[in-house]
């Protein structure tokens, strides 16, 4: 990412001159505002910031950012962003996608970009629906979702975006809900400083086609979510409840405390952003309705990025063979001369 000299920026500086075209009440507005505010706080260079998206309501995002932006085609943003980032390491490249764009048609590019640890900051707007095409179910829709293409309910088992990202090899994984501006902001700050493949699942409400899908996950005190803090135990409901690992590697909800029938804090799992892959999978599997859903930074891991390694290989080659000599290159292999007499010498 470009070294961010602190230039004073306001949210306004990051707003483009385009009218925002989302439906009134769409969760996308809140995410947009938070991104604009956070980038202003960070003081990014607008000219070195690029937003690349696919197709979908969420993918209209780049038009509204007063930075460079590319609204590409359905599902291909991670591939296009990869080509840009490896050739232009000086840029901050953000990818905006949706649950359909990024996990249905674009699922393969997504996992391969993550696998390569491309230095991209990918934000997936998960509204569990295809908004732009008027409300068909998506790969994250709950089983039984009634939508125009599934009037009697969807029958496929949804994907868990966090599990998929983890399995694919993302090195920074986080989750927040569109109504929690504060948490979104913190996550974006952290994501900005991470070198490597960032995957953020933004739980986004689509009031028109899937209103209230995320109502169930809002609120830590009421025991619907766990707000993750690195090094702190996995507790919720005001600290009265916690998660421990039960027999057969099955997570359990327990009452925290030293009283009878309670579990001592020492046995509660402690959140570790840089924890083991298995621990991260445990977090990924904590899902509604059985469990409160973890919010915040779930996983972090520092690995060289594809871009760094690619450029390293070029530098090494130059160090080893010297900067390429074009004439040498042309004259390599069996070369001979034909003289003025037209025959070979």
């Amino acid at each position, binding site marked *: 990412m470009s070294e961010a000299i602190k230039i004073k920026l306001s949210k306004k500086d990051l707003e*483009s001159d*385009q009218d925002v075209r989302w439906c009134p009440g769409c969760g996308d507005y809140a995410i947009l505002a938070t991104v604009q505010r956070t980038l202003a706080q960070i003081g990014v*260079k*607008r*000219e*070195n910031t*690029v937003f*690349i998206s696919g*197709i979908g309501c969420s993918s209209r995002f*780049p*038009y509204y*950012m*007063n930075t*460079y*932006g*590319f*609204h*590409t*085609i359905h599902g*291909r943003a991670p*591939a*296009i962003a*990869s*080509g*840009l*980032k*490896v*050739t*232009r390491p*000086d*840029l901050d490249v953000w990818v905006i996608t949706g649950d359909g764009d990024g996990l249905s048609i674009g699922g*393969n*590019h997504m996992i*391969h970009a993550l696998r390569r640890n491309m230095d991209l900051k990918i934000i997936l707007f998960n509204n569990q629906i295809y908004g732009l095409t008027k409300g068909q179910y998506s790969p994250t829709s709950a089983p039984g979702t009634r939508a125009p293409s599934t009037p009697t309910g969807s029958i496929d088992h949804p994907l868990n975006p966090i599990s998929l990202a983890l399995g694919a090899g993302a090195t920074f994984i986080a989750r927040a809900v569109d109504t929690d501006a504060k948490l979104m902001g913190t996550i974006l700050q952290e994501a900005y400083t991470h070198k490597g493949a960032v995957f953020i699942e933004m739980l986004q409400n689509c009031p028109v086609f899937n209103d209230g899908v995320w109502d169930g996950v809002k609120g830590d005190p009421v025991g619907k979510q766990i707000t993750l803090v690195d090094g702190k135990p996995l507790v919720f409901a005001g600290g009265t409840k916690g998660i421990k690992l039960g027999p057969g590697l099955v997570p359990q909800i327990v009452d925290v405390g030293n009283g009878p029938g309670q579990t001592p804090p020492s046995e509660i799992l402690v959140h570790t952003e840089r924890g083991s892959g298995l621990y991260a999978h445990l977090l990924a599997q904590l899902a509604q309705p059985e469990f409160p859903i973890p919010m915040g930074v779930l996983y972090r891991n520092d690995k060289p990025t594809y871009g760094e390694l*690619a*450029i390293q*290989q*070029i530098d*090494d*080659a*130059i160090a080893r063979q*010297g*900067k*390429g000599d*074009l*004439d040498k290159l*042309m*004259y*390599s*292999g*069996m*070369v*001979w*001369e*034909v003289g*003025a*007499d*037209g*025959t*070979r010498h």
Partner: protein
Amino acid sequence: MDTKHLDRVVIRFAGDSGDGMQLTGTEFAKAAAEAGNDISTFPDFPAEIRAPAGSLFGVSGFQLHFSSSEIHTPGDAPDVLVAMNPAALKTNLKDLVDTGTLIINTGAFIEANLKKAGYAANPLEDGSLDKYKVHAVDINHLTMAALDGSELSNKDKGRAKNFFALGLVFWMYGREPESEIRRIHQQFTKKPAFGEANVKVFKAGYHYGETAEVFQTVYKVPAATFQPGMYRNITGNEAIALGLIIGAELAGKKLFYSGYPITPASSILHSLAKYKNFGALTFQAEDEIAAMGAAIGAAYGGSIAVTASSGPGIALKGEAIGLAIMTELPVVVLNIQRGGPSTGLPTKTEQSDLSQALYGRNGEAPMPVLAARSPGDTFYCAIEAVKIATRYMVPVMLLSDGYIANGSEPWQLPNLATLPRFDVIHRTDPSNYFVYARDQRTLARAWVTPGTPGLEHRIGGIEKDALTGNISYAPDNHEKQTRVRAEKIQRIAQEIGELDLAGGESGDVLVIGWGGTYGALRQAQQQLAAQGKQVSHAHLRWISPLEPGLAKIIKNYKRVIVAELNMGQLRQVIRATFLVDAVGLNKIQGLPFKVREVVEAIENQLVPQPTESTAVAPKPLAIA
């Protein structure tokens, strides 16, 4: 022992995929080139990696045409066939000229192999080969004998037998063995024991020719005369890779190449991956769509972005190519064509992706299309594609094919210093910048790359305002933009040079061709012209836009033939554009034209005859 002089020889080496025929052929080609002959080669290998030994479908062949005068093709039919086993004989004999020479490895003609090749009786004994000059040599045995006492395993010893064949033909054609021996040693520096063995066997083959009185004659093909200059032997895929490196250099930019492996395009990626010290960045993507996507991203960032594939992969790129057309970003797309449809004939050549190149996208999505005519020409086409893409801000499709991609020819090395540069300038001036404001001459928009302060803007695949580039659904704007995108392609005509026309600007027959058929068409025209026939040959490099030169002459001929390795794809364009009743010479066999086939087709048109009815969808003129 007498010596006979020949003007030209066509020789084909055929054996198991494992027999090393490609290597044998390549080495013998080097020797011919070294001796100053003009050469043209045609490797023809199976789709299988290493089919089981002795099987018919596992036969791998390499044809070499070497000559004391200028040649353009690997030759219609071999004068000499080296058959390392029965399957090789079975599949290749039909091509050998009558009274041709046969060199047969009798050691492989055992019961089992004969059966696998479907021979009821041993052709060496049933007289079926009587009309040929047959040289029956037990190469297997002689190879073993030559390596008697070597510490190599018998399996490894057997592997050397192709060098016996190589030595034998070296002697037959009076080639200088020394430099070959040097080359073998170099190639096996890592495994000197093998090098030693191969040299031993090579010499054994050479001396066998010398001593065995079966070979009474040594054939000499004198050196050809060439344009003075530096030369090297090159295949199409090697040359296209070089062209991309040089093209990027002439543009003053870095090269980014993304691809997903596919026959016969993969070797371009392999070559470029070796050129890291030239700053070339190669990316093996997860599929062709991602490869095209990555190229678009790199172009957006200011690189010379290139992606390559063959037919099926190009089909997958269609939607993304449309995005490059809409956002007007320069990407070079290479299609190394192979036999279709679908998976088709992956290792065979064809020209059947022209229509796809012209129309294989949704909406009105015209793009420039040019085609390379020969291995060496791919170098210049690659440079031209880079130039046009960056100058006109448009994706460009460059067509090659399996035949020129794998075939080789002596290539006169250009003097890099004399190649004109076309340095790219990225706009950095923010003062009244409009994203889709256009250059008057080229109609190109300015190539502004991220990282430029004050020029932040947004682009995308939805129709854009003709000036600001903002999303626009306005009816008139869409019509305007659609026409500008089309006009931009037509403007490229101003960059196109003279039409390559051989023969008069009027006459009885005009043969129009494009791409890899150049050699056969040009040679046929030369033959007939030499006989005083009024035959001309126009070979197109640019199909979109269509070469302007064609309009001036096409109506001056009694007959127009469009010759292509497809069912008439260029012919359709020619007929629609000029309303000329062009007939088709079409071959869809996974093989290049033979000069004879072209000559016959032209002669058919020379005798007055009713031309085929054109009231039905174009039906091509089939060839025997």
